[in-house]
Every structure is written in C-alpha cells, then in structure tokens.
C-alpha cells in the first residue's frame, strides 16, 4: 500500500530542533592558558556575542521552516543549508579565538566544546536523511562535500590556537609516521588474512572435518579479548626471537609489530573465513546446475560463475575485517606496535585530552572512510540486488 508523504518531515524537524538546542545551550569551546590547566568553557553567545550567535542559527531556522513545508524544492534547499552549516562550523571557532585569546599568551589554546561536536553529529545525521530523501548517489554527495572540505582547509589557517592543532604541530613527523604505521599494520593484516582466509575456506569446502575444527578454533579466538591476545603473544615471540637469530634480524621481538600483526591476523581470520566460506557455499544451486547443464567445466563454473557471485560477499568480509583491524591496531600501541593508538595512550597517561583526540579522531575517520569506500565498492559489484541506494551511476 503506497503511503502519501506527510506534509511535515518530522526527521529533519527533530534533528534541526535538537541541533538548535544543543548549539545554543552547550559550550562551543574552552580557552585554557596552557596545556595542562583545564580551560573555561563558553557557550556560543558568550563566545561570539548574541548578534553573531543568532546569525549562526539562521540556517537552522531555515531548515525548520523547510521541514514544516517541504515542497518540490524543499529538499535540495535543505541540503544546501546543511552544507552551509557544515562549511561555517570552523568559522565560529576562529571567531571565538579572535575574541577571547590573549595575544600576550602564546601558550593559550582553544579547546573544541560539546556544542561543536554535537553540531557536527546532528549535521551528519541530517546529511544521511536528506541523502536518502533525494536518493543521492554516493559520488554526488562526495562532490557536494568538496567545497566543505576546501572551506575547512582554508579555515585551518585561522585556527592555529586550536589545541588539537598545537599538539599536531609539535609532532608532525611522529603523526605522519603513526598514520603510516597504522595503515601498514591494517593493510598487512587484512591482506594476509584475505590470502590465508581464502585458503582455509577452500580447504573447509573440501573437508567437513576441517570445517568444524576451523570454525570452532576461530570462534574461540574471537572470545579472547584483544588486549589479552596481544599480551599473550609477547612472551612466546620474545622466546622465539631469542632462539632464532634470523627472526630477530627481521625485527621480530616480544614487543613491537610482530605480536600485533599476529593477533590482528588471528582476529581478522574469522570474519574473512566465514564470509568467503558462505560466499562460495551459498551460490544458488539452480544457477550452478544451469552452468553445468550448458556444458561448462568445473574450472569455468568456478571462475565465471562462483567467483563473480561470491565476490561481493567476500568484499563484505574485507570491509568488516578492515574496520575491526583499524580499531584493534589502536590497542596494539600498548605493546609498542606504534600507530595512532600511541597518541591515545600517551595522552591518557599525561591527562592531555587533546593528544588523545589527535589519536582518536583520525582512527574514527579512517574507520568511517574504510566502511564507506568498501561498502560502496561492494554495492557496485553486487548485481544480485538493484536496490543498493546510490550505487547506480
């Protein structure tokens, strides 16, 4: 039964209303005289004055009006307003810095407050809602986001007092190194788990005993907390490195990348094997029978029918594994594996929350980006459903 659209878009209305309330009531940011002393928080009105604060709300009021009466042009207009709000977000912080930072105090720094983070969050949800309302393809949205990205790039120049920025500028080299280490560990673990996982899945298809044993083992591995698995690999690897010099020569030791890599590989295997196995087993028997009935050889059936049909499901496994590995690699910093987790644990140790952010934010961004990219790729390769929103060119 088709449903007529209600005249009011309650989702946009709710989100805009909540965003308005949090934007006005929670602190936009805080000013601290130096790194250690906790800062004083300012709401938007206190930070940039009521007149400007009201100006900052205008697009939100526009959204409310559009949500009340979304006509034919309503949704594209709402999308435009949302992008405008996103584009303007850094500007309010910059304004706050100009107004409140004492140029006499070079140590003084600007912290980002709850209102700002929540605004980012509500605006992301608005984007999701508007995207599905407009049935916007992923790449179109990415294109629309480009001006926002450029705007933020430009605004970054005005935001030197930003605490996050100051933490970064002190350790630009270390940051880049950590990002590279993080990506290498994730890439290495996911890549090798794909190869090893595919081999295990193929072996499982040959022999049901291997299948039972393999799944029991991999399921067991998943119940061990990541923290413990990293720790438990320390001693055996240290022992191995002390016994075999060539291993030590490769850089294997109890602490560092080796145990991290092994533990990541272990965790990645379960989702990878499970998806590959399911992908290869659950091809429609009718399709396989038809393929054989047409006179295709076993090899042809595998390469031309099974594999292309299995690919999206395997990729789904790669997506799950990658997102999981990005998070787990952060934990691996505890055993000296490097990566962005280093900043998190350093920051927690020094109670320097901006350093924690420097580690946590890129990890979050990486996870979301990997999820979005691999998800889009999966949908593109998946010919079984045409429903995948935004996948169609």
């Amino acid at each position: 039964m088709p449903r007529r659209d209600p005249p009011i878009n309650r989702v946009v209305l709710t989100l805009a209303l909540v965003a308005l309330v949090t934007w006005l009531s929670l602190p936009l940011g805080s000013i601290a005289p130096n790194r250690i002393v906790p800062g004083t928080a300012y709401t938007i009105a206190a930070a940039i004055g009521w007149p400007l604060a009201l100006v900052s709300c205008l697009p939100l009021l526009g959204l409310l009006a559009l949500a009340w009466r979304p006509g034919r042009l309503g949704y594209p207009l709402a999308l435009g307003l949302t992008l405008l709000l996103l584009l303007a977000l850094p500007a309010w912080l910059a304004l706050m810095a100009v107004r409140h930072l004492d140029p006499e105090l070079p140590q003084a720094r600007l912290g980002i407050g709850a209102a700002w983070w929540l605004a980012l969050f509500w605006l992301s949800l608005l984007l999701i809602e508007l995207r599905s309302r407009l049935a916007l393809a992923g790449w179109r949205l990415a294109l629309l986001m480009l001006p926002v990205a450029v705007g933020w790039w430009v605004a970054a120049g005005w935001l030197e007092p930003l605490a996050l920025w100051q933490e970064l500028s002190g350790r630009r080299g270390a940051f880049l190194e950590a990002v590279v280490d993080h990506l290498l560990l994730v890439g290495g673990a996911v890549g090798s788990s794909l190869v090893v996982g595919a081999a295990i899945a193929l072996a499982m298809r040959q022999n049901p005993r291997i299948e039972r044993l393999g799944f029991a083992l991999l399921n067991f591995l998943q119940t061990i907390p990541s923290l413990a698995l990293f720790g438990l690999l320390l001693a055996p690897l240290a022992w191995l490195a002390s016994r075999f010099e060539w291993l030590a020569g490769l850089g294997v030791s109890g602490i560092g990348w080796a145990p991290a890599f092994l533990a990541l590989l272990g965790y990645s295997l379960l989702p990878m094997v499970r998806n590959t196995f399911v992908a290869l087993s659950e091809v429609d028997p009718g399709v396989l029978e038809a393929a054989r009935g047409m006179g295709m050889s076993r090899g042809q059936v595998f390469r031309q029918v099974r594999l292309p049909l299995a690919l999206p499901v395997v990729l789904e496994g790669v997506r799950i594994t990658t997102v999981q590995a990005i998070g787990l690699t952060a934990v691996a910093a505890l055993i000296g594996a490097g990566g962005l987790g280093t900043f998190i644990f350093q920051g927690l140790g020094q109670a320097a929350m901006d350093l924690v952010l420097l580690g946590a934010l890129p990890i979050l961004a990486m996870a979301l980006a990997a999820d979005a990219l691999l998800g889009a790729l999966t949908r593109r390769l998946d010919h079984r459903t045409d429903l995948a929103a935004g996948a169609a060119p």
Partner: protein
Amino acid sequence: MSMALLTRWSAPLVWLGLLLALAVGGEWLEPLLRWSEPEARRVLYPQADLLTLLLRHVQVVAIASGLAVVIGVGAAILVTRPGGRDFLPLVAQFASMGQTFPPVAVLALAVPVLGFGTWPIIVALLLYGLLPIVRNTLAGLEGLDPAIEEAARGMGMGGGQRLWQVELPLAAPIILAGIRTSVTVNIATAALGATVGASNLGAPIIAGIVNGNTAYILQGAVLIGLLALAVDSLFSRLLPARQ
C-alpha cells in the same frame, strides 16, 4: 525431570562453576602459572581479589548491555510503528555507524567528557553493542510474514495486541540472537576499560603487559574467556528449540 533439567543446564553450570572456582581459588593454579613465568617474583595477580574484578566486569557489561537492549529494542519498536516509520532509515544507518566507531576511539573520546573510570567504557560498550540489537530487532519485526500481519489486523487485533501477542513473540528468537552477539562481544571488549582506569578483568592484563608478566595476562584472559563461554551457553539454552 530434575535430571533432564540438570543436563539441559549442565554446560552453563560447568562454565560458571569453573569461572567462580578460578576467581575465588586462584592459589591452586600457582604451580601452573609458575610454569608460564618461571622467573617472575609473583605469578598471582595481587591488587584486588579476582572475584571483585569479575563482579565489576559483569556489572559494567550488564549496565551497558541492559541500556543497549532498552534503547536498541525500544528504538527498533518505535521506528516500526506507523507513527515512527519516518525515522527508520536514520536509526538503521546510525546503528550501523555505531558499529564502525572503534571502541578504543569512543573510549578515548568519552574520557574528556566523563572523566577516568567506569563511565567511558560503559558508553563505548553501549554504542558498540547497539548495532546487533537494533539490526536484529528490525530484521525480526520487519521480516514477519505479511500474511500474519494481515490476518492479525483482519481479526480485529489492535496495535498493542499485535505487538505483544504476535510481533514480539515471533521476533523473539532473532532479537535474542542479537542480544547474545552484543553481550558476548562486549564481555571481551570491556577489558579495554582498564586502560582508562576502570577496574575489571582487563586490569590484570594491563598489569601483565606493563610488567611483562604472562601469568597476570593469563589470569585475566582465562576469566574473561570463561565468562564469555558461560554467558553464551546460557543464551543458547534460552533460545527456544521449537520452530
């Protein structure tokens, strides 16, 4: 009857027994642990007794999972009612985004707001555990045979009657499976809380990593593993056999 009951519940009972035995009487294991760390001065984790840590661990997971169940199932029910259907795509997307957030990152981001201690890990677990519950509840409620919905309406059942007598009982196995996934994953993930000062079974693991003492790590890991197994086998008994 009592025999049958005993065999039915034997697996969870065995795991629970082992778990409590290890938590209370860790001293018996000293020789075994000694074997893993021949040189260390101590092999038994000293700071707080393991039973307290176990109880704190259970507490954290229970609070986070309890909240996740209330919020997840509640939200999924609301967005499948006629009045809330507009919010369905948003809630589904948000739940899947929640799973994408790495728990360490959420934990780290929660510390500035909530301070060190137990609350950051509860928030991280809540967010991480929400997706399986929301996803399965939505799948359970949306996947019902339309003919059953039609018949329920056609017989004159009201919205509440349909929800409580038809939709929830039929979706229950799928919802429970989601809660099971969520809880078992959270039991393992809760160990991370020890890095922000929550005292739970992650504490011996961190201490072991810092001091290079494998025996400490083993104690934490084994107890967490047993807890996960006990809870998981409890869930597998809860799921009805009839279908």
